[in-house]
């Protein structure tokens, strides 16, 4: 590559680099910077002292943050598992040729296309204790037996998990479908000729070949699930008794409701680090699988 070309490439790349710097690198750096200071917006007299890792030490001692962390982990584990499972079934279904497939493929994507805030509001109505459709479906007109789903800690968290699974399974399905479509039809035909049944065709052809796609959707779903905020914000505001106080919501409250800019930033940075570490692990293993698959 001659140096003039290189300069030209750089010139073409510079708009993208600039955008990335302004909108991605700068906010992360400023969060990191803020997380090393004690800044309380309601108390400007305290100034904004550099406190080193004090916010992080405090965060590890904070029992509410620990609780939020575990709530988030449960949320991530359960939603990701079911989203991949349901997404796999949906993908296998819409991969088959049958009349109306195009229509069904479009329908599957509807939940994913609805903005989360809107679907969260919808689920809030569905789970309502007085006029919610879910109570009506379970108990009919016997209103005295209606269950206040969002008022019981366990069911409130489950409600949010359900809303998320409903919304994003189709995203997983889409990714897995892409994986399914690159599997050559001849493999299945050859297997059929050899007398392989449905299960064996799935086990020995489909499964190994869609594993990279599954891993990629696992990666996307875990990262996305760790950042859950809007569902809890709309459906429960973190209650009852902190049962749905996911980490991002806790950070938001610390920062924007209470005004702890430094501490709230420390929470954001921790979420960023968790997601970063997960991504590195996944990307490395996905990368290796991809290599194995192509060998």
């Amino acid at each position, binding site marked *: 590559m001659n140096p003039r070309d290189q300069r030209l490439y750089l010139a073409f790349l510079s708009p993208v680099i600039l955008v990335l710097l302004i909108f991605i690198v700068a906010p992360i750096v400023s969060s990191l910077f803020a997380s090393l200071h004690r800044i309380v917006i309601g108390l400007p*007299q305290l100034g904004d002292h550099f406190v080193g890792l004090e916010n992080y030490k405090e965060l590890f001692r904070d029992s509410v943050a620990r609780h939020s962390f575990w709530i988030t982990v449960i949320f991530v584990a359960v939603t990701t598992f079911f989203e991949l499972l349901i997404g796999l079934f949906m993908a296998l279904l819409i991969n088959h040729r049958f009349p109306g497939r195009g229509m069904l493929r479009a329908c599957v994507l509807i939940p994913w296309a609805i903005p989360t805030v809107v679907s969260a509001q919808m689920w809030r109505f569905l789970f309502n*204790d*007085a006029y919610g459709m879910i109570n009506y479906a379970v108990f009919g007109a016997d*209103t005295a037996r209606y269950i206040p789903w969002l*008022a019981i*800690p366990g069911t409130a968290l489950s409600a949010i998990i359900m809303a998320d699974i409903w919304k994003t399974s189709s995203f997983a399905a889409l990714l897995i479908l892409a994986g399914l479509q690159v599997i050559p039809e001849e493999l299945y035909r050859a297997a059929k000729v050899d007398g392989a049944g449905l299960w064996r065709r799935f086990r020995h052809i489909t499964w190994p070949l869609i594993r990279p796609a599954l891993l990629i959707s696992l990666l996307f779903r875990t990262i996305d699930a760790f950042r859950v905020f809007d569902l809890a914000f709309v459906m429960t505001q973190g209650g009852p008794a*902190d049962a749905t106080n996911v980490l991002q919501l806790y950070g938001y*409250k610390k920062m924007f*409701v209470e*005004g702890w800019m430094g501490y709230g930033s420390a929470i954001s940075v921790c979420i960023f680090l968790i997601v970063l570490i997960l991504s590195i692990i996944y990307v490395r293993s996905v990368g290796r699988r991809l290599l194995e698959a192509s060998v």
Partner: protein
Amino acid sequence: MKTFSEKWIFLIAVCLLGFGSPYSFAKEPTTLVFLTWKPNQPEVWHRLVKEFERLNPEVRIKFQVGPHSSTQYHAIVSQRLKNKDTNLDVFFMDVIWPPEFANAGWCKDLTPLFPVQDQEKFLHGPIAANTYKDKIYGVPCFLGAGVFYFRKDLLQKYHFKPPRTWQEMLDQGKMIVEGEKDRTLHIYSGQFKQYEGLVCDMLEFIWSNGGSVIDQKTNLPTLDRPDVIHAISFVRDQIIGKAAPEGVINYEEPESLDLFIQGKAIFHRNWPYAWSIANNPRKSKIAGNVAVGKLPAFAGHDSASVLGGWQFGINRLSRHPREAWRFVQYMSSYQAQKILALEAGLAPTRRSVYYDSDVENRMPHLKAFLPAFKRARPRPLSPVYPMISQELQRFFSQAIVNKDSDIPRLAKNASARIEKLLKLGAMVK
């Protein structure tokens, strides 16, 4: 070609002069930005503002509408003020914010413009709430206090007087529910979601048992005192899932009011705005059968109401402080408060409006609210109140949600966290 373009320029210049001149000689109107939440009756507010603009042709008011929830509105206002936004002149403050805003230097000190003799025309509670370190930072717009609504038809049917104690309320309620043979009828409806309203409802239970959450003298939390624990246990054991449906744990004001106006609750705690909704036949099944009174108390103690309501504040960095003050003055005037009372059902903060003959005739219930308003107690006045509130919300929610919660232990944990916050608040005093 040259002459052609010159002709055009000449023409355009004439047009500009012709259309522009009447305005270019008059003074450019000043635009004030007023950040509100979406009011229940926006048309009343717009009419008031139009009238102000008619009286002050050199000032224009630009509405900016923020979120309805107090906590979310706070997030927006505090962010903008913190970022030294000079494009914000007048804003609302919830009754719990003035100490925080004053301490942060966000709102203008109004003491020179709003002297004591003018302050005395207002009810004492909201004036005290707007005062921080002997200076006043806001002008009360309308007032709120926890009031007790009940079904007068049902109480009459069973020959009951309005209950004075919480126990009496439960006893009456049990008799009525049994008599009505309605499994969907509940005794009580209130606000117990983990949000600011939970603090209000719980403080009323605690105060009406002689308790408090912070000792003003020692500046220490008092959550583990027996009277506090007793009041909270009462709510957990007798109210949630018993007198009130378990769903109240996720109720804010609108949901709890729905239950009441659907005729599914006998007693209801809410703010004054609920009166006109509960008596509106198009919205309410119990219109005409509603009465108000003071909240019950525990035996041997006095009833207590939490002070609520909204104030006008002026941005300290506003570029038009004189016009902003004129606007605030107008919006909190006798006339404006009268219109807000008559047409939007908002409780005035000026004493004299309660004795206005139109208000007395058309809104007789406002007089009935007055004792509750005069008695209403502020939530802890502190620049760190938003933080204290988050801890109180967490504590109350944990205490009432699980039937077997260890309240003394939870109280000890919450106290430790609140004590730290109070120390932080004391550092700036």
